[in-house]
């Protein structure tokens, strides 16, 4: 990727982050922390990688994305809006009673959402089903998955992983957002799922570890994944929860708390400053 492209992705990511802040703040609840940590991955997928068409969100041959950690709906919605699936101002209706943007993603109401999620670990299983169907139908679409590191504590993740390897689903690319935090604190203290990469290797996956906030590394990992045959792909993304908003970074407390108006303004100002620095 050239520098120009990376710069453009960085700006897009910052705008998506602004959307996350604005939406959760308007809702008065929601999950900014884990949304911000996976924003760069989402930006790369939706603005560089995925075969999708905003005019035909259900196009049969499209690539799919499943947000298995469904509480990170804010980043999914903000990415889809930024990409043009629906108007950005609708983000401000997040979690309102008549809004199609519910607390957790609903595939029947939100254009561009491929699977409804919210109960952790069920998304990855559905993604395995989609990937297997792609093989059955001899289609070349791929299935991307966003997961949390706390989510890995669910047994279902490992059932899904076993199935994905068993059926050699190399058309699947899974991203674990390895921000080290869940709700009650550090993943290693709550219920240690480490070593993460080694576990997926043992389960028969092709595993890469990257810095989740480095577009070049995301790019390389996704390109490498395309070369792999016969194994599902896991990209372990070392990330910072709350990335991009200084007072949210690395804080478990920002998992499921919305910024108050003055916090929102500070966050948006920081992101605007960052965008200005990119423009300079």
């Amino acid at each position, binding site marked *: 990727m050239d520098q120009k492209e990376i710069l453009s992705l960085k700006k897009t990511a910052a705008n998506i982050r602004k959307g996350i802040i604005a939406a959760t703040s308007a809702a008065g609840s929601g999950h900014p922390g884990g949304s911000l940590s996976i924003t760069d991955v989402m930006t790369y997928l939706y603005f560089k990688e995925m075969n999708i068409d905003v005019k035909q969100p259900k196009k049969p041959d499209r690539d799919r994305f499943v947000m298995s950690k469904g509480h990170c709906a804010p980043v999914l919605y903000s990415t889809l809006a930024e990409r043009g699936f629906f108007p950005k101002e609708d983000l401000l209706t997040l979690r309102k*009673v008549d809004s199609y943007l519910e607390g957790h993603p609903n595939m029947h109401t939100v254009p561009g959402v491929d699977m409804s999620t919210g109960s952790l670990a069920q998304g990855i299983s559905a993604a395995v089903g989609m990937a297997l169907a792609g093989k059955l139908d001899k289609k070349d679409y791929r299935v991307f998955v966003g997961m949390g590191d706390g989510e890995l504590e669910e047994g279902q993740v490992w059932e899904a992983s076993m199935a994905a390897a068993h059926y050699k689903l190399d058309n699947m690319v899974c991203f674990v957002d390895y921000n080290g935090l869940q709700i*009650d604190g550090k993943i290693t203290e*709550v219920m240690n799922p480490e070593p993460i990469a080694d576990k997926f290797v043992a389960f028969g996956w092709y595993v890469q570890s990257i810095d989740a906030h480095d577009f070049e590394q995301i790019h390389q990992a996704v390109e490498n994944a395309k070369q792999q045959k016969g194994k599902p792909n896991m990209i372990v993304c070392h990330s910072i929860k709350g990335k991009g908003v200084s007072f949210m970074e690395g804080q478990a407390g920002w998992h499921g708390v919305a910024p108050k108006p003055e916090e929102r303004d500070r966050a948006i100002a920081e992101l605007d400053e960052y965008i200005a620095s990119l423009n300079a």
Partner: protein
Amino acid sequence: MVMQNQRKTYGDTLIELGKQNDRIVVLEADLGKSTMTFLFEQEFPDRHFEMGIAEANMVSFAAGLSLTGKIPFVNSFAVFSSGRTFDQIRQSVALGKLNVKIMGSSAGLSDFGDGATHQSVEDIAIMRALPNMTVIAPCDSIETKKAIKAITEYDGPVYVRLCRNDLPNIYPEDNEFVIGKPVVMREGKDITIFAMGAMVYEALVAADKLNEEGISAKVVNVSTLKPFDEEAIKKLSEGVKGIVTVEEHAEIGGLGSAVTYALRGIGTPIETISIGDKFGQSAENYRELLEHYGLTADNIIRKVKGLYK
């Protein structure tokens, strides 16, 4: 009116009981600040176990603990503690009648923001369907405290449903909580309203307004959904012109189902108020959602008046 939070009361009560009974152990699935088990953890770190986001394992693990005489309290949001774990509750706990307490926090629509995936509209139905299970939905904090004490003394599996939001204290302080016993909250002779959980308060408000219009409504708090005291329900329904049930739950398998089944054949007209056969959805606050589904005093009044036509 004193507003209190059932979750907080539960957390405080666990500490109180934990001091008296060292067999109590508390299991958590990464929602401790929400279920309020972090309070117990601060007081008794050795008897609090963080089990991670792995609810199914937590339930069968609790079954194992109970077999050595421990009294495990299993905690998560109600959707997960009753739904994600249904087979583990059925096979590991209910079948063997093990002494495991399953806590359904943020139940019903009370987790208003998170939406359908996090709102337990069917927890009472699925828990009631299990043989050996006791199912309790306290109406406020006073009753929560009494109920938690009662289920600790009771040897067997129990499911308890708790609201996320503050509720007005309405339960009579001097009333002894007895598992299975409906409580008359307000006497009345024309109509009987059977209510559960947060809806008991709505029923009381409705009864007050109806009284001004000359309709005398009896309000019954049916906090134990199982074992269901059919005889008591029949008695409380004698001599009235109509019966209304109201619950923050799906129409299938909850209070309305239980009451209409208990009263089969009596001929008195019955109206039910529930979420219907629907999932929940997101909203800005709890009240807005209750209004959206007609779970309000006004709707109770409408139904009562309908019975008079």
